[in-house]
Structures are given as structure tokens and as C-alpha cells.
């Protein structure tokens, strides 16, 4: 007998059963069971004619309400089942993110000396300098004579030289590039010259082959102030803005006045330690105003032009930067060393 209670009972069971299904197949079955052509609600509608006229209308609309409700709930349920399935499928492929990565090659390394060289050249480049290079097997003339170091000059003792023959040698510094560039070009010039240089010397801090960067500027009215400006800018860019820099009188045959440049010790910050031999200062480069003899050699007029030049050792700066205590490590090619830097 169709009654309000019967309809409510069916609704309640349907809701219960709907709650418990998890698969799309169960959902199809359940939907057919209640909302299908031979479903329970259809059965109820078929029973409508058996009730009294008065009740038919209200029970009819009640059945339709339940039907609408169930249609909505079934449709929601289907969404829910689909979503949960999708989620389940995604998490089936969950990975252990801590497994080591798959790598088919190692990452390479640029040699620390060359990386520091690039860094230095970049700084000078940003200050307006160009890069030039020169030969390593050099003529005595360019390495010494043209740089105001004649034969039998005591300054030749400062640099013990490898010779190829009477007139050719392995350059002992990058300064000859200065002459070569000035010979073929006219001022204004702002040039840096990186390269290998050679001296007969070998211990923990000396290598028979090492790397220098020479730099120079020639123009009208270039002064010692400019030299100080450029090198202070460079050293503070390289070692840090807060580092103090000092210029000390010194001697090089190819500059006059000449100076040695010290930077506040990077290890003890000027307090004095073993690295700076207690002085608080580290000598990092040599420089000066280009000696007029060089101008006379290349045919520049010293009453028109003046210039400065400087030279720095890449090994020294690299050793300070990375706290390396043995210069020979640079040339061994031991990957245990290279991969740390």
C-alpha cells in the first residue's frame, strides 16, 4: 500500500546505499535500482492509481520530490566517485623524492686560476679596459731592453730567466705586451693583458710557470691619482668594499714613480697574522706611472701623453681568495683539488 511512510522508507534506504558505494559500476546498478525504468520510484508511480484521489496528488508530488532529490544526489555522487578515482590513480605513482637523482654526466669545472682571471678581466672590462695578448716566447728586447732593463742591470736579478737562445727567452712578466701594444696603436689606450709567465724558481709559493695580468692606460693628463683610483676600485671590487688599500713607494725599471699596493689582510682583517707576517697588510700588486723611456721606445711624446701601468699575480690573488697554501696544486690537475673550487 503506497503511503508517505513507504516513500520515506525507500528514500532513506536509497540514501544509505548511495552513501556506501565507491565504484562507478555500483553507482550504475544502484541508480537503475531506484531511478531506472524498472526502478523502485517507477514502481511507486505505478502504484499511484491504487490510492485515493485525495492522496494521489500529494503522494505523487512527494514521489517526484524524492526522485528529483535522488537524481541530484546520484549525480553528485558520480562526481565524487570520479574525483576520488582520479586522485587514487595519481597517488598510485607517488615517488620517493629522496632517491638519488639520475645524472648521466658530471658538472665540469673551470680552473680556479682561469675563473679568477675572468673575474679580474670582467672588473677591468667594466672600467673600460680592453684585452690584448702577446707571445710567451719573447725577445730579450721586449722583455727587458725596451722596458728599461738593459743587460747587466741589477733589476735582472729580480727575475731569473729561462732562455731559448741568445735573444729569445720565456717572458718573465706580461709587461712586454705593453710595448707591443703601444708600438702598434696610438693613445688613448686602456688595455689589460693576461697570460702565462716564467721564472726559474720552484717552491711552495713559487712556480716556474705562473699567470700575470698586466694593465695600462695612456692618454693626455693621466695621473697617479687615476692609477690609485682604478686600482682601488679594482681591489675593492675583488676583495670587498670595506677593505683598506695602501700604496707604498717601490721600484720597477719601467715605471716612475713606482708603487707596491697592499690590501688589508683578508685572513686577520688587519690585526696581524701568519699570512701577513704580522703586518696586517698583504702585498697584491705592483704599479706605477709608465717610465718615459718606454714612451721614447714606442715613439710617444711624453710632453703630450702620460700613463700608468700595473701587474698582478693571478696565483697570489687566487691563493688568498680560496686559502690555498701550495701553489703547485694549481698545475697538478688533481681532480680532488679541482672539484672543491
Amino acid at each position, binding site marked *: 500500500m503506497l503511503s508517505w511512510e513507504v516513500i520515506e522508507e525507500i528514500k532513506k534506504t536509497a540514501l544509505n546505499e548511495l552513501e556506501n558505494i565507491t565504484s562507478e559500476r555500483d553507482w550504475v546498478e544502484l541508480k537503475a535500482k531506484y531511478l531506472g525504468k524498472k526502478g523502485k520510484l517507477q514502481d511507486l508511480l505505478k502504484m499511484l492509481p491504487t490510492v485515493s484521489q485525495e492522496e494521489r496528488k500529494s503522494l505523487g508530488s512527494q514521489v517526484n520530490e524524492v526522485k528529483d532529490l535522488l537524481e541530484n544526489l546520484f549525480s553528485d555522487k558520480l562526481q565524487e566517485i570520479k574525483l576520488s578515482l582520479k586522485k587514487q590513480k595519481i597517488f598510485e605513482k607517488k615517488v620517493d623524492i629522496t632517491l*638519488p637523482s*639520475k*645524472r*648521466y654526466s*658530471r*658538472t*665540469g669545472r*673551470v*680552473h680556479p686560476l*682561469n675563473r679568477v682571471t675572468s673575474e679580474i678581466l670582467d672588473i677591468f672590462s667594466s*672600467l*673600460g679596459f*680592453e*684585452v690584448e695578448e702577446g*707571445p*710567451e*716566447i719573447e725577445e730579450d728586447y721586449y722583455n727587458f731592453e725596451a722596458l728599461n732593463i738593459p*743587460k*747587466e742591470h*741589477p*733589476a735582472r736579478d729580480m727575475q731569473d730567466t*729561462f*732562455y*731559448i737562445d741568445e735573444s729569445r727567452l*720565456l717572458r718573465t712578466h706580461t709587461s712586454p705586451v705593453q710595448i707591443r701594444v703601444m708600438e702598434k696603436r696610438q693613445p688613448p689606450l686602456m688595455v689589460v693583458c693576461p697570460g*702565462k709567465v716564467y721564472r*726559474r724558481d*720552484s717552491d711552495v709559493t713559487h712556480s*716556474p*710557470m705562473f699567470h700575470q695580468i698586466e694593465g695600462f692606460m695612456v*692618454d693626455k*693628463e693621466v*695621473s*697617479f*691619482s687615476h692609477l*690609485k*683610483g*682604478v686600482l*682601488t676600485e679594482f681591489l675593492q671590487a675583488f676583495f670587498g668594499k670595506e677593505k683598506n688599500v695602501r*700604496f*707604498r*713607494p*717601490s*721600484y720597477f*725599471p719601467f715605471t*716612475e*714613480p713606482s*708603487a707596491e699596493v697592499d690590501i688589508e689582510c683578508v685572513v686577520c682583517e688587519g690585526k696581524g697574522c701568519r699570512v701577513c*707576517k704580522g703586518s696586517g697588510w698583504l702585498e697584491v700588486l705592483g704599479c706605477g*706611472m709608465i717610465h*718615459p723611456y718606454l714612451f721614447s721606445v714606442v715613439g710617444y711624446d711624453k710632453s703630450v701623453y*702620460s700613463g700608468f701601468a700595473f701587474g698582478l699575480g693571478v696565483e697570489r690573488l687566487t691563493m688568498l681568495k680560496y686559502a690555498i697554501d701550495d701553489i703547485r696544486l*694549481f*698545475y*697538478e*690537475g*688533481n*681532480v*680532488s683539488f*679541482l672539484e672543491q673550487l
Partner: protein
Amino acid sequence: MQILLNWLRDYVDIYEGVKEIAFKLTMSGFEVEEVVDLKEQFKNCKVAYVNKTENHPKADKLKICEVSTGTEILKVVCGAPNVSAGQKVIIALPGARLPSGNIDKTVIRDVESFGMLCSEKDLGFTALSTGIIVLPENISIGKDIWEEAYRDLDDYVLSINITPNRGDCLSHLGIARELSALTNRPLKKRDLSFQLVDKADFIDIDIESPDLCPRYTAMLIKDVKIKDSPDYLKIRLFACGMRSINNIVDITNFVMLDRGQPLHAFDYDLIRDKKIIVRKAFEGERIVTLDGKERTLKESDLVIADTGGAIAIAGVMGGLNSEVTEKTKNILLESAYFNPPSIRKTAKRLSLPSEASYRFERGIDMLGVPESAILSASMMGKLAEGIFQPVILDAYPKPYHKEGIKFLPDRCAMYLGNKEIMNKAEDRLKALGFSVIKKRFEWDVTVPSYRQDVTIEEDLYEEIARLGYYEEIFPLLPEVKIKSRKIGDRDFLDSLKCKIVDFGGYEVINYSFVTLKELKKSLTYDRYKDRLIFIKNPLTDDETVMRPNSVSSMLNVLELNHKRSNYDLFLYEIGKAYRLAEDNQNNKKIEEKKIVSFAFSGNLWEKSWFSKEEPYDFFNVKGIVEGIIEATINIPISVNVCAEDKYPFLNPAVSAEIIIDGKPAGFFGLVHPDVIENYEIKRDVFIAELDYFYLKNLYFAKRTYYYGFSRYPKVDRDITVIVNEDLPVADIQKIIFSSGAEFLENIRLVDLFRGEKIGTDKKSLTFKLIFQSMEKTLNDEEVNKETQKIADNLLKKLKVEFPK
């Protein structure tokens, strides 16, 4: 140069502490490398009293002394013959660090010894020992030795790095002059009067080479007593790194350290015919020098001779035949100026660097020559009871002359970048001994005779600036006249390196020189033997050349790494090779050629949880080299078989020449087993070398263009052929491309199979043919037709088989 602080006080008043003095000197161009407190060097050296001595039971020459140090009684074993009870002596207690060694408690022939009784030699004062020091009665027991016994040790030694231009500062007088200028305190003079004469009856001087010896002075000091020097002299010499010999030698050394003038003392009675000849040596002339060695001279050497031959090598070392000995009575004292380059040449050639030659090489004060003579003579009078007249024989054929310097104050201000300094310029120059006459736009500056280094106006700029420690010059960035930056070598270098690093390369830097041994070991010698550049004076005895390529350098690096268990390596170097090359006129010239070198060993990647290991082999090395080149210059490479003997260090079966843009650009391959045998290398090694400049030129020359692409789909077909093993794959690919097949866009080898199924000496290759049209979508029929064309061509040209 060692400078003694109290010695400087002979010339200038000093009120500052030693640190302040070191700072002033350092900042004005005399870098003080170290300050040593002399007292510290004699810590634990005390005055003691010998209570009693007894003979050592097991050694005849040793005595066991009981000494009192004032606070304790100690037993000390002593070997000096002059030790006896009642003496005041110096004991070095355990912990003392003497020039002769560190003192510890020891056991000497079963007897414990709690220190050492010192001789002057033990303390480093003298060269020879004359027994332990016996101190005078009035010295107090228990005192440190500098307190009463050797008061001169209460002093500081400054170790100063004197630059080669400042020969004048290789003396206490020179440094004192600097301090006088820095502190504005007057320089004190040693007041010694003398008379210069150009003839004397005691000796004749004949200067044959006035260019090499412009001034030579001599004095005669008679009846000297050769003996020990007083303590202060010994200690001053000791502090400056010298040892006391006897009073005469010590005085000449003292004057040299004091005034920078090297002196020589001859035994006057050994000079034949009382004639000094300053002349060039005869070629092959021999002389036995003071060190007992016979030297053979050349015409370029300057000698001091008498009528019988050379008696000294001028400025370098005296001769044994005129040496001052204990028997010497009369001294001929030489104070002279010798030409610096000549002295340097001789000292260098004879490997006889000395304190004297070091100073002559750097130029001494020509006007100060006689003053040094008279100072020595007066000391010989005081300390050796010598008798002399204050008369100096002065042979002076080339009198000192130096042009003044024109100084332009405006230019100096511009040069230093500071006008203010010019207000102090005149005072500073005068303080340094220059004289200045000011005119309207220029000054006439006269340089003091001891400042041989100052020759041009820029030298004066430095003098002015350095007295202000360069601190008055303010840093200023120059105006940059911007040019468009040249794209240069470094752009290519950076780009190339970046690619190599991407592929996993570790950069190494090798020495540019290798030994012949290493070249032979790596089988590279034969290929380059006529083109090697030898180093005349290598570091070791091994014959050394500039490396003609990088093979032996790279093998050395691999070996070092293998020895340290690093086997999986991909190394690269961008460096130079150095060879002799012939130019158009058949002249040999030196060629420095930049090369890119690679070395591979072990695994490209190691076995892991996702993959088995992949060792370096010919093909992945080929892939890396190819990849780097393509990534850098965007040009595909091809390979050629190498001529079998062209690269003797490579295995000819597994190596190839690299062709880029139609020309050979390098090589790569497996290193020859005969090479590997010579090294402790435990894996296969592949190497490659590329011509840097060739790549660089392509990098800058090659223009890359966009040429459009097809909008229609790609269609592919696989084709499998069976061919003889020795047919190169490149030949098959060439035939495929030349089949006249339309729309063929690319081919890829997707399978390579060998096995009994297809017969021995055969290989089966499967190519994927990729078709694509620029105009339309291809249909199956069209693609099949083109594929058939290819198959037909392969059959016709190469007689390939197709699998059933």
C-alpha cells in the same frame, strides 16, 4: 739589508720607537720585512760563575763544571780547554736558541749537562773559536748577557728590502739620510779631515781603464797589530749577518756597512814594485782568490795588479797573493769606484756574488770614496795601533759629473694629480740632499752624488710624493673615452669553455715545458723531433723543451689521478703548443699555437640504481667532441680515418681525424697501448686535440640563418640492410641520400646487429628514414614509392641484402 737601530743613531737622532721607524721607512719606499729584537735572540743566556771543575770520567778532553747562575747550581759538561774555577762565564740554558743551535738538557758520555758554556763562535760573533768567553770580574752573576756583558745587544735589527735602484741605502748612512729627511732632523757627520794628493811615495797608481775605474784611492797604514776586534764591532757585524775575523777585516766590513763603500786591504809588503795597475785582465789570466780557488779571467774582467800580475779581481774578491794575514805589518787600503755593469758581469760569470760586488753593481757614491778610506784608516789607528798620515792618494781620471735636472712644477702637479704637494716639493727635495734653483716655470735641480738612481724629472716626482707616503694622492677614476667594445678572443673562449663544462669537463693547467724523457715516454718525440724548442737553462738536469702538443702533459695528469684512485675523468685544457715552423723563406720561426685538449678515462657515468655503468668509448667521446663543437660554432663535424703513422701515440684502429667545414681541425682516439704501458694508468684513455684558432675563426666567420620549416607532418619508414662488416656506415648513408628520393629529410641509424643468424663478417643496420614535404601532407603511397627508390639504389650500388 740588516740595519741596526742604534747604529743609525751615529748619524741621526731618533726619538721614535722601532715600530714607528719601521713604518716610516716602509711607507717611504724601504719595506721593513722584519724587526728583530736582538735581546730575544739571546734569551736564556746568562752570566754564571764556575764554582769548580772536575775531569769527565769517560772523556779526557771534557770537564764537568759546577756553575752558579745566582739562583741555582748546575752541572755543565764543557770541552773548552780554557775553562777553570773562579771564572765568570756565559751559560746558555736549556731553551736558548743560539746561531750555532738550540740548547737542551743533554747527556754527554753518561753525564748530564744542563746547558752550555759559550764561546764567541757559539754566540755567532766570530768565525773561529778561541775557547769560552771569560768575562771581567765586575759583571754580575745571573744577569742576562745584554744587561752588562754585551750591552750592544740591547738593540733592534731592521730587515729592509732595498730595491735595486737604491744602492746608496745599502748602508747605515744611506738609511740615516732617509730618516733625516723623514724627520727633518739634521744628519750628523763623522768629523775626519784628510788631504787628497795625486802623487805619493808609498805607491804608484796606474789606471789603464778609466771607464771601468774612474776613481781609485789608496792609503798606507803602517805597523798594524792584527788582533781581535772590540765587542761592539763584533756585535754590529753579527747583527748585520757577518762574522768577526780580525780587526783589519772587521774594519773594512764595518765601513762598508756604515757608508756603503766596499774596501780592500792589501798586505803592502806583498805588492811588488809598489805599483798598483788597474787594468782589464788578459784573456786566460789566472788568479787564486781569497777562498783558495783558482779563477780564469777574461778580457772583460777588471783586475788590480802589480808588476807581477793580478792581485785582486776588482770589486769582486781579493787575491791570495796579497792577503792580509797574521804576519801583516803594513796595510795598503783601497777605496775605489768601479763601473757597475762590469762588476756585475764578472761576479755573475764567476758565480762570486759578494757584499762588495753587490754594492759596486748598484753604484756607490763616487764623491764619498776618500771619506770611507779615512774612516777606515782612523779605525785602524785606534783598533790596530796603525800609523798613518791623513793623506789619501787619489787617482781620479774621470771626475764625477752629473747634469742637473730641469723640473717643471706644473707638470709634476698634473702627473701626481695633486697641486697641494707642490707647496712642499722644494723642502722635500732639499731635505733629501738635492739643491734647487727656482726659476719662473722650471727649477734647476742638482742631484747628490750618492743618488745615481735619479736621472729624470719623473724620478724627482717620486721623491716628492714618497716623503708623503703617497697618501696625499687621492684616488680618482679616469674619464673613459668609450669605444665600442671589440668582440674578441675572450668571447669565444668563454663560450667554448662554458660548453665544455656543460659536457662535464674539468679544466686543468699544465706546465708549458716537458722533458724529452716525457715526450719519448708518450711516443710524441718522433713526430716533433725536428720542431722542438729547447730551454737552454732548465730547472733540472733533464733536457727540457716547450711542449709540442699536450699529449704527455695530459697523460701525466691522468697518471697522477689514477695513482690517487680518481679513475673517471674528463679533463680539458686550453693552452699552447710550441713548435718550430718554417716560413716562406725556409727560416725556422717559433710558432705558439693554441690548442684545445681533452682526456677521458674510466666511466662517463658509473653504475647506479637506474643504470649500468657507461665507460668512455670511441663513440661517446666522439659524441662529446661533436656536441661541444656543434654547441659552440653550430657546424656539424665529420671524421676521416687517420694515416696509420701520423699520430704514433694513438691506436690507429680506434682513432680519427676531425673534419670541420672541409678541413682537418684535430684528432681524437684511443691512446696507443704502447704508450699506456709506460704509465701507471689503469683504464682505457681517449684523447682529443682541436685547433683553437681554426674554431675561433669559424665562430666569428660563420653566419647562421633561419631557413623556415615545414608545417606538414613527418612520416617515417624503417629500412634494414645486411652488409659486409667493413663497409662504413657513412658510405651507406651517402648512398641513401643520393638515391634521388624526394621528401627525404633525415635518416637515423636505429639498430646495429651482428650475429650468426646473418652470417659472420656481416652486420645488419636499420635506418629510420624521415620524410616531410614543405607543401603537403604525404600519403602512404608517396612515402612507399620514395622508400623503394632508396632500397633499389642500395641494392644496385652496394649489393646489400635485405632480411627475409
